[in-house]
């Protein structure tokens, strides 16, 4: 599904190398988790993959189902099936959540040469999906993320994911700012989307989220590279011993 080879990335403005040769393959239907200390490059990886400005790929490649991602604009990557659940979802005053969702769904459909969703059909689908995420009609009507609590914002991310039905979902510290109940709700939303044709890359600091969203593979990232990969037990090891042991081991 997602294939990253020897990816090197630097910040355009500061000439600072952030990623120093990331290799990662996420197979269809699998959940991979990336853990790592602050500043290891986890969020940068998610931004580079989703097409944010300000990063320069100096070496390496990244592809989604064989299609070169790095050549595409952010919206083209989205239409190709890539989805990033933001660590800090952006507030957009004046743009209604529903308008936003419908514009996004139909823009992607159009880009893929599919028929656009009618207003009635859209409303029906969005209401059903919102209900399972406990997103009420008021939240749907309000401007995108404006006045939403931390938990509401993350639930809104998952609703977007559910509506857009991407193939490859990247969750960037989706657990940050969530209380236990909200984390459960969000995880249930994610688990409901698990499917043989859909892959996940879950970026997190804490093993806790991985109790709810069970990964197939866990990677440890440090200093711009993936330094260790293993099964779910690797996350538990980090939880108990911190990163120091792992980092010492590879040094």
């Amino acid at each position, binding site marked *: 599904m997602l294939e990253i080879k020897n990816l090197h990335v630097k910040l355009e403005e500061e000439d600072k190398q952030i990623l120093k040769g990331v290799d990662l393959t996420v197979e269809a239907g699998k959940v991979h988790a990336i853990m790592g200390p602050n500043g290891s490059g986890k969020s940068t990886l998610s931004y580079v993959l989703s097409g944010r400005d300000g990063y320069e790929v100096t070496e390496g490649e990244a592809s989604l189902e064989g299609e070169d991602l790095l050549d595409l604009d952010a919206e083209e990557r*989205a239409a190709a099936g890539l989805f990033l659940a933001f660590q800090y979802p952006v507030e957009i005053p004046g743009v209604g959540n529903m308008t936003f969702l419908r514009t*996004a769904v139909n823009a992607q459909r159009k880009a893929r040469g599919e028929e656009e969703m009618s207003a009635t059909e859209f409303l029906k689908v969005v209401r059903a999906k919102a209900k399972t995420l406990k997103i009420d009609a008021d939240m749907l009507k309000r401007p995108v993320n404006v006045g939403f609590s931390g938990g509401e914002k993350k639930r809104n991310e998952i609703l977007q994911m559910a509506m857009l039905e991407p193939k490859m979902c990247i969750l960037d510290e989706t657990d940050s700012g969530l209380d236990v109940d909200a984390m459960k709700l969000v995880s249930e939303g994610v688990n409901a989307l698990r499917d043989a044709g859909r892959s996940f890359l879950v970026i997190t600091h804490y093993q806790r989220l991985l109790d709810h969203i069970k990964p197939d593979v866990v990677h440890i990232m440090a200093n711009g590279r993936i330094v260790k990969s293993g099964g779910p037990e690797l996350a538990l090891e980090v939880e108990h011993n911190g990163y120091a042991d792992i980092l010492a081991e590879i040094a």
Partner: protein
Amino acid sequence: MAVSQRKLDATEARLSAMALPEGGAWLTEARETALARVRDMGLPARRDEYWKYTRPDTLVDAAATTAAVFDHGEAPVFGDIDRLKIVFVDGVFDPAQSDALDGENLTIERLADIGAADIHWAKDLYGALEAKGQSPVERPLAALNTAFATDGIVIRATGKVARPVSLIYQHVSESSDVVLHHIIKMEEGADLTLLENGPAAARFNKVMEIDVADGAGFHHVRAQGRDHERRAITHMFGRLGKESTFKSFTLTVNGVMTRNECVLELTGDDAIAHVAGAALGDGDFHHDDTVFITHDAVNCESRQVYKKVLRNGATGVFQGKILVQPGAQKTDGYQISQALLLDDDSQFYAKPELEIYADDVACSHGSTTGAIDEEGLFYLRARGVPKDIATDLMTLAFLAEAVAEIESDELSEEISSRLEGWLIRRRQA
């Protein structure tokens, strides 16, 4: 301040080529008095402080610069709204295209007709609010209008008027130079919605004097017409009585030169004045909102909400003032002017002012100039919305606060769809 001889000479030179229109005794008197005001003040010149950001030349020149008639191929604004239509073609009332000038709780007359009469109730209003609005800041082009207006509409509302009255301005001749003066008298408890749309002329000088008596409500929505080369200087002078409401919204797209002045005085307690505008300009576009709101009564509320979207070197100006007179306690005054600059070539000049002589008031003002929010843009794009559509969505969102000032849903939807139409045309161009 003494007026320079040079300015007075220039004014005399301009006036010498003009003759006051014929009219009845009361109107001739009002015109002569206005002409004297113009002579005292002198016409605006480039170095006037009040014209610092907008060059008055083309509005003052003896002849109007020609403006091509623009066939926009778009359904007329307000076309689907049930309304009483009053059509002016190059500034001349056209009975054939207009509806019958009557309605329940309403009398409508032409200035050209009543001006010939020896006496008319409009005598007490024509030029009166304009003259009062000359202080503390002079507005010579409004006085020029009072002196030389040949036509206009004179409306008296005596109760709730169900259908909006719609003034439609058609621009036919490339060199039309039009001066219209409207009078609107809202009697106690009356309620009226006035619509205006169309480019009017190559050059349009319009004054509207609105007297809103106690408890009356005046609602105004205007779309200024999409002719690219048109020029306009418009003034609204309003007086608000006790517990009255005055709401005005203006949409401006295109036009090389537009200056809209709005001068309101809240003279009765508990009055409410909301004025707003949305302007979209591309390239050779200059748009100036000049607003002056005077609070002279207790517990009144005023709001100014002006938004401009500028690109390809377009220029926007906002000069807005709230003046709170001594004794105007419990005033609630708010003013916001914002510009969204879609590139580095466009410019926005803002001069927000508060002048307060009462000690128990809440007044706030703000002004911002900025580019489109990159974070928001990326968020939309990351969800698959193409950059140009995302930009338009953010632009509409930016303008939404001004459009929200329109009370009627039907009218605000009409204005929103025009904004959207303009953006879509630019996107596809």
